[in-house]
């Protein structure tokens, strides 16, 4: 379970300025005033004053739309560089639906949509270009409700970090079969035997851990579960000689992605990193993290 942060938006954080429509609105109101004054007729005057009054009212109403929103977001994100990594933001709207825009950083992609009363998950798009540990930029939430005359926004310092693995771009790498690579015949690959293979009659020395409790409960007798790791050859991934560092990292990341998807067994050997072959999601994460954080 990742750690979460909370925030409740209060008026103190809200900025507000007229939107483009708001400026136009004021201009039309002014035009109506001039029209009314110049022709001494009151209908355009009243309309102009009404528009001004609505615009003044809208200041408060617009600021009100952001007030009281409750946000919750994770402090840690992990994903690939140069790929979309949305920040899953949990947004609680006190009442009424409103049209909100959310954006991470000035250059981030905008999320726009209707937020209805209640709690909802919003994937705020974000994309980091380079591997490593990134601090998430500030989140901007804006709204123009109810009339679109003013735009009000808050900027929130998220204090969240994103760990980006190297972008998976396929390329040439060296794959050294293991254990031949190290010459230590006895060493076993760090394989998590996770795949269920078959049931065998239970022997007391196997202990209760492997007992097939479900079968026992159904009255089929005592069986023990047998697991088997993938039988594929374990490999050590190393960069090809003379390849640029980032390019090599990209190639290795791509290969890891591929191997992990096939459930194969792999290890890493480059610069300071030396990870024994293994498989499973934890192993994959360890490898990718070390690639991401490689200085």
């Amino acid at each position, binding site marked *: 379970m990742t750690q979460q942060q909370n925030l409740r938006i209060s*008026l103190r954080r809200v900025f507000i300025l007229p939107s483009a429509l708001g400026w136009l609105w004021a201009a039309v109101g002014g035009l*109506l005033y*001039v*029209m009314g004054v110049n022709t*001494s007729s009151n209908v355009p005057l009243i309309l102009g004053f*009404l*528009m001004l009054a609505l615009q003044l009212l809208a200041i408060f109403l617009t600021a009100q739309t952001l*007030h009281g929103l409750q946000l919750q977001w994770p402090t840690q994100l992990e994903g690939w560089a140069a790929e979309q990594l949305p920040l899953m933001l949990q947004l609680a709207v006190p009442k*009424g639906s*409103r049209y909100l825009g959310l954006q991470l950083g000035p250059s981030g992609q905008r999320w726009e949509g209707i937020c209805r009363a209640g709690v909802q998950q919003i994937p705020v798009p974000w994309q980091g270009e380079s591997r490593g540990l990134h601090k998430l930029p500030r989140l901007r939430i804006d709204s123009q409700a109810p009339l679109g005359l003013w735009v009000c926004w808050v900027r929130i310092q998220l204090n969240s970090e994103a760990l980006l693995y190297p972008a998976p771009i396929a390329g040439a790498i060296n794959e050294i079969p293991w254990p031949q690579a190290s010459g230590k015949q006895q060493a076993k690959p760090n394989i998590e035997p996770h795949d269920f293979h078959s049931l065998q009659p239970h022997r007391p020395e196997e202990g209760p851990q492997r007992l097939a409790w479900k079968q026992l409960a159904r009255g089929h007798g005592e069986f023990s579960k047998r697991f088997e790791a993938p039988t594929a050859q374990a490999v050590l991934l190393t960069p090809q000689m003379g390849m640029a560092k980032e390019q090599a990292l990209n190639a290795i990341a791509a290969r890891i992605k591929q191997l992990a998807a096939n459930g194969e067994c792999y290890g890493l050997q480059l610069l300071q990193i030396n990870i024994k072959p293994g498989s499973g999601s934890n192993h994959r994460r360890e490898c990718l993290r070390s690639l991401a954080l490689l200085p």
Partner: protein
Amino acid sequence: MKQEAFIRQAQALQAIALLLLLSQVITDLLPATAFGILVALALRWQKKLPRRRLISLGLLSLWAINQLIAGAAGWLEAASNLLWLLAALRLLEANDRKNIGGSGLLLLLALGLAGLQANGLGASLLAAAAALLVLCSLLGVQQSAEKLKLGLFGQAVALLSLALPLAGGLFLLAPRLPALWQMPGANGASTGLSDELDPGSIASLVQNDSAAALLQLKEIQLPPPEARYWRVRVLNNFNGRSWQPGPTAPLEINPLPVLASKQQQHWTYQGPKRNTLPWPGVGTPQDHKQRINRNGELLRASNNSYVLLKSTNQPSWQLQPPLTIQSQWPLGSNPKLEALARQWQQQYQDPLQRVAAAYHWFKAQGFEYTLRPGLMPTQAPLDSVLFEKKRGFCEHYAAALAALMRASAIPARVVIGYQGGEWQPTAGQLQILQRDAHAWVELWLPPGQWRTVDPTAWIAPNRISQGVAASLSARDQEQLGRPVLGWFNQLLLPWQKLDQGWSEWIISFDRAQQNLLLEKYLGPEASFKAIQILAGGLCGLLFLGISLLWRKQQLQKGDKAKQQLDRLLHYLAKKQLQPIPGESLAAFIERAQMQDIRLKPDLIEFQDAYYRMRFHENCDKKTEQKRLQSAVKNLKRLRFFAQGS
């Protein structure tokens, strides 16, 4: 591209608003504009709209054709037609949030422009409905509601009702600048008074009940009904059939500046735009920019409201000798009339005697005053009025008498304006309606001045002393639109009163009336004070809004007990006393008082009050809250001397 439901909805709302708007300006709508807009809307509805640019181009060219056909259409008409077209086009193209806002704004602008042309109560209500729809569309777009809900209208109404008092305050108090520039074609309107008098071409006169002018008197007596002649326009040119203004009269020599008189007439002209405004013919305009020309016409300066100061001098326009055009007579145009005039000319040397002869002749003929005289022949129409049909209304008789006098060598001209008006004692003002429109004659008589002669007064004295209705037969009275019976009109009566009130209080509330009102309540330097009040009011409103929001925020923070607990924890945290996860308040407090025994009484007090506030349903929350506050306060006063015991 598939449009979202709420965009379509907003479009539909705005389309209805546009149709409402068009329905009230239907008479000003050039046919091609109307046709173009309707076709475009219909096509859009059927989703058979061809490429947008094509439609735009088509509609704009339609408008251009319109302008060519209409030719002399006024600038206002042209501008508003273009605006309506643009609003319709913009509406068709509005396929996202931004464009809906833009088309809504255009509609509002068009509404204002339409308000110039139609400002009765009915038209204003329609305009308000249209504005409400536009507001709904804007609200709907921001809320992105998929289905049109009644709540949206409720919100729009609530928003409007919040904004209305503010707008009303601005309307009453905001300073009105004088007109920035003279609007071109300000005399283009033609209802009410026309600048031409061609009585032969009018078969029956439809009386217009709308307001023409409002007169308020300051320390001055209201003239008796028979002296209430309000001149507007002078017609000098006679072509044998109709009377026209003739060449523009030069301006009068600037009158000497007069001492500010307290005897004032405050005029508010409420009719369609004109270059000349009604006035009694005597008095001096307070605004030195307002001029009087040699015809005795009061020229419009910038405003429809003007003040006339009483002056004892004889107005100089009355002494301006006649121009040749004022004596010209097209020979042979009305032979019988000409023969009669010649006879008088030979019979009486003195022009005054000729006028007296005309008076007796008119009295003896048994002329009938009617609003339905029927058409006169194009050949010698005035002969037909005087010698055959012997029926007509003021225009017929004024045109005929002026012609008779010219033919008998007395310089003569026709004056059109208003006569009479309804005195409203409660408001202390004279309301002049378009139906009070009148025409009379001015003759150049010895010892050398223009004198007013009204043949209608000879024929139907009641018309002058009691108004039009009194001088008509029952059949004619029906035509006035005010039959004595008729349940329908009875039903309409309250509406008419409302309408009258609307135009009296709202539509004709202008700079002069604003000044009057402000001076009444605020005394001298009223407009400056009004600005102060306005600024103060706006600041107050701002403050009120912010404090309301602030209060709401505080309320939402809620939970007073939690606030106090946070204060306590914050305070103790500074002393390295922090609750351990899972520790209860009681355990924590015990630990704290172990550390410093002096904290004990206040901590116990705090704990007790806190538990009571949390778990005791019938406790007095305010008292407990005060206990919490004072406990924290007392703790803060204590100084920590030692940590640990």
